[in-house]
């Protein structure tokens, strides 16, 4: 089906034979991002210099983005976490396209978070769009139907001019791609901080659903089985994108890098999804891999090294959008919406027929061999002959130096607890008004209303609820909940504790809506690994997450690392975004975050300490970052989680809301805003600390009066501190002896911030 190729440029073709006969030719390994010792290693592996095609493959596959060369020595420790949940062993874990966990009733889900940070800064719409496309293909490649996405986003200050270029483009890109695929967008984050001004973060989470028997893996097995490339044609987009865009920061003096960003076609991806699911259902797929970063270089080498160890491809059979592409470019191209399948010869006809039904182009480009080599030909001449694992898995491992930064002690000594505080009721009310309207705490519907949250009819909860929730089976009401969280300011103050705080916030959010936390994926966004300060932050964050996983029995299903997120010498806040997935047996028992009716009792669960360092209050009112983050207590988190899940499944509580950014004051405000129901509370101790401290392991819940005793008994049973706060009702938020503010007034301030800054 491939279009006629132009005459091969044999005069310049660098074949294996040419390479053997011309061993000392100068090669542009440095321009391709390789280091001298890495190039020497490649020569050792091959016993000769690489051909230009081989050099292209090694350079993209050994880049930071594909090889995790700086991070893998730290990621290794996640292997210590048992790969099982209370429901059963993980069906696929780290190293696969995406992790797969058993959720019972014969169902499994696949989920994963990935970053697309650098491309989204260069070209916001396409960068963000193809970020969604990439994670969706990862999920699809496991055999799952993609059903939902979430997007944790981080930008520079809301009033910075460049934020007005980057934010609307990224949001439109996330929506433009995801909406067109028919995937419900059920949550995420929108966070502003000046460290992201020259380096926004675009993380994308994908969720897919499958039956156990539908699980597919990325391997090329069975000698003589055919390798089929299907989906979009291969073009010149994103060539070198992986190694160039992800390996270096932006230099203002460097060449324009726009051509390296991929361009997405969501319509093609939608066809690819439906076509692939039909191929799975027909039983004609032996192994499958999506094409993402590093394109064909990645797919061929990974499939071959995971299977019988050999593959032979005719690169001239690849359908091209631009017939002038050289073989090196075809191998490096990151054209979107492509998949590679391994198919038994008897099934090829049916495979191609299904592709034709969906108007998806497909071409047989090679076959599985047992030679142990990845051999690629171009019009009959051998241009690649390598051990596939050496490309896919034997990239360099760096033991980058790391050390606790010299400034860490001074930062931790500069506490926010020492800052001036509001003292009168009026001042407290003014603080609340300022905080609810601040960019990080304000209403995000300007963003989330650009995403389809309803498609497929199974969205039980979506933003602004604490977690997104999807119904998996409408007979049994089995469902899953997901939340993504990270407070980068906490991680800056103490990356070990900060990463754990991200973990427990996500864990708590999932529990708050009524689901039992089951598994974690993460997206670790950090600055340059060549900076020992940053490398220490990364190492500490990994250690923190691993310890939290071990303590709370949560396996890691895989994740993503994004390094070099910095502008000049300034790194972003360390941002280990954590996504926890929970399972809920009956989605009709989910707990909403908004007050449901007046006259209900409001309780605080958990203990409040004087913890203001890194808080939203310190950030907004004093532009201050220093001190120690809130204390972490994993046992308390577990007890609170168990209580919340039980209270949900037994229908004890009518609403529940996690306490995090902005503390109790902001949680009360958000729960009031949801249905316009006010609340009056009386606080013990210092009202400022009670309202604005960001102590972890806390939530507010409401109960009808006749259920109050049941809740108190439940809290006692689980050893969770419980404090009566007051009751719902009226149209104001009132704190006894301090202030009373109309809900409508606060809500108006909360809603106005983003539209005022970005336009209707």
């Amino acid at each position, binding site marked *: 089906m491939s279009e006629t190729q132009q005459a091969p440029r044999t005069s310049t073709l660098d074949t294996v034979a040419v390479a053997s006969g011309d061993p000392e030719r100068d090669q542009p390994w440095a321009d391709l991002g390789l280091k001298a010792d890495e190039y020497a290693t490649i020569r050792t592996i091959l016993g000769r210099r690489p051909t230009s095609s081989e050099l292209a493959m090694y350079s993209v596959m050994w880049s930071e983005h594909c090889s995790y060369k700086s991070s893998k020595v730290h990621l290794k420790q996640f292997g210590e976490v048992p790969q099982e949940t209370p429901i059963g062993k993980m069906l696929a874990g780290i190293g696969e396209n995406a992790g797969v966990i058993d959720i019972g009733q014969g169902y499994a889900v696949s989920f994963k978070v990935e970053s697309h940070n650098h491309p989204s800064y260069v070209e916001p719409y396409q960068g963000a769009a193809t970020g969604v496309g990439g994670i969706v293909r990862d999920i699809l490649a496991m055999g799952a139907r993609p059903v939902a996405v979430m997007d944790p986003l981080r930008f520079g200050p809301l009033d910075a001019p460049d934020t007005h270029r980057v934010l609307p483009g990224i949001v439109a890109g996330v929506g*433009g791609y995801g*909406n*067109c695929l028919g995937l419900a967008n059920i949550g995420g984050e929108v966070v502003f901080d000046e460290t992201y001004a020259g380096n926004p973060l675009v993380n994308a989470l994908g969720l897919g659903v499958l039956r156990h028997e539908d699980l597919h893996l990325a391997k090329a097995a069975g000698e003589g089985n055919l390798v089929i490339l299907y989906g979009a044609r291969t073009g010149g987009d994103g060539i070198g994108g992986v190694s160039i865009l992800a390996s270096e920061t932006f230099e203002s003096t460097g060449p324009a890098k726009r051509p390296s960003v991929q361009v997405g076609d969501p319509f093609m991806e939608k*066809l690819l999804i439906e076509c692939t699911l039909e191929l799975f259902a027909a039983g004609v797929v032996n192994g499958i891999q999506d094409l993402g970063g590093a394109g064909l270089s990645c797919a061929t080498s990974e499939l071959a090294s995971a299977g019988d160890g050999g593959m032979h491809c005719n690169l001239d059979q690849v359908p091209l959008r631009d017939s002038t592409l050289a073989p090196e470019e075809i191998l490096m191209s990151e054209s979107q919406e492509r998949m590679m399948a391994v198919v038994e010869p008897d099934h090829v006809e049916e495979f191609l027929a299904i592709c034709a039904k969906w108007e998806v182009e497909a071409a047989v480009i090679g076959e599985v061999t047992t030679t142990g080599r990845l051999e690629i030909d171009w019009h009959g001449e051998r241009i690649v002959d390598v051990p596939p694992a050496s490309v896919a898995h034997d990239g360099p491992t760096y033991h980058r130096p790391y050390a606790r930064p010299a400034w860490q002690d001074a930062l931790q000594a500069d506490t926010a607890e020492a800052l001036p505080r509001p003292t009168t009721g009026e001042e407290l009310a003014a603080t609340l008004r300022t905080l609810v309207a601040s960019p990080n705490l304000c209403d995000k519907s300007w963003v989330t209303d650009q995403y389809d949250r*309803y498609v497929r009819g199974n969205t*039980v909860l979506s933003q602004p609820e604490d977690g997104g929730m999807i*119904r998996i089976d409408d007979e049994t009401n089995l469902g899953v909940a997901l939340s993504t969280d990270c407070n980068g300011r906490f991680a800056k103050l103490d990356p070990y504790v900060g990463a754990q705080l991200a973990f427990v916030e996500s864990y708590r959010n999932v529990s708050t809506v009524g689901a039992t936390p089951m598994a974690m994926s993460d997206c670790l966004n950090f600055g340059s690994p060549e900076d020992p300060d940053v490398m220490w932050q990364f190492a500490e964050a990994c250690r923190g997450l691993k310890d939290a996983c071990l303590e709370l029995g949560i396996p890691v299903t895989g994740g993503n690392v994004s390094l070099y997120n910095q502008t000049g010498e300034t790194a972003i806040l360390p941002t280990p975004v954590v996504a926890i997935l929970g399972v809920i047996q009956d989605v009709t028992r989910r707990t909403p975050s908004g007050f449901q009716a007046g006259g209900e009792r409001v309780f605080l669960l958990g203990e409040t300490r004087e913890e203001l360092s890194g808080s939203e209050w310190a950030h907004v009112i004093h532009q201050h970052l220093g001190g120690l983050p809130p204390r972490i207590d994993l046992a308390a988190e577990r007890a609170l989680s168990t209580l919340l899940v039980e209270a949900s499944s037994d229908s004890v509580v009518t609403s529940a809301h996690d306490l995090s950014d902005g503390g109790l004051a902001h949680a009360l405000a958000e729960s009031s805003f949801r249905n316009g129901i006010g609340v009056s509370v009386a606080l013990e101790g210092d009202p400022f600390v009670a309202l604005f401290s960001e102590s972890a392991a806390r939530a507010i819940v409401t109960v009808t009066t006749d259920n109050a005793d049941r809740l108190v008994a439940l809290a006692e049973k689980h050893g969770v501190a419980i404090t009566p706060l007051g009751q719902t009702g009226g149209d104001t938020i009132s704190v006894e002896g301090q202030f009373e503010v109309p809900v409508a007034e606060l809500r108006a301030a909360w809603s106005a911030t983003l539209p005022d800054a970005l336009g209707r």
Partner: protein
Amino acid sequence: MKIGVVTFPGSLDDVDARRAVTFGGNEAVALWHGDHDLQGVDAVVLPGGFSYGDYLRCGAISRFAPVMTEVIEAAAKGMPVLGICNGFQILCESHLLPGALIRNDHRKFNCVDQRLRIERVDTPWTSAYTAGQEVTIVLKNGEGGYVADEATLDMLEGEGRVVARYLDDNPNGSLRDIAGISNERGNVVGLMPHPEHAVEALCGPGTDGLGFFTSLAAATFA
């Protein structure tokens, strides 16, 4: 009754529409864009989505799908046809309904729980409502601004063919706040909002959309 739901390449809400048809007490039949076959259905829903990626113009390519030949023929003979969102766009491109849908005036995709007033209730899709009934159903689109020339708008108003109108703030710049219209006979209805996303309280803003799928079972329209 048997209600067919057409799947075009890029249709998204076909699953939801089939579920809503079932919830409404009818039998849902999946129809394929490439077949010249309506499989003996009594009515047809053209669902929401981005058929052909909205390339060229929304609905402009789907209008030429093989199955549309049969849909257009059947509609002319009085078969009830409901086009939702992208389906409405396809009905306009097919000239089964007048006017066109253009990009929202604020230039953004918009997904909200929208209040509407149902104004025409003598159609096979709206007979379960009372005239003037206010409902809340999901609105989600990037190109939902209804436009037509003044004479056409006056004709639609004069003949009582405005099926539903937006309440509160106009969400997309639609002329005269029009959310849905019908043909003269009333059997063909195009609606920008998505009633199929408002058929169960658990996964949408209530059940106000169900009437679009119970009307057919409740009344007989020959």
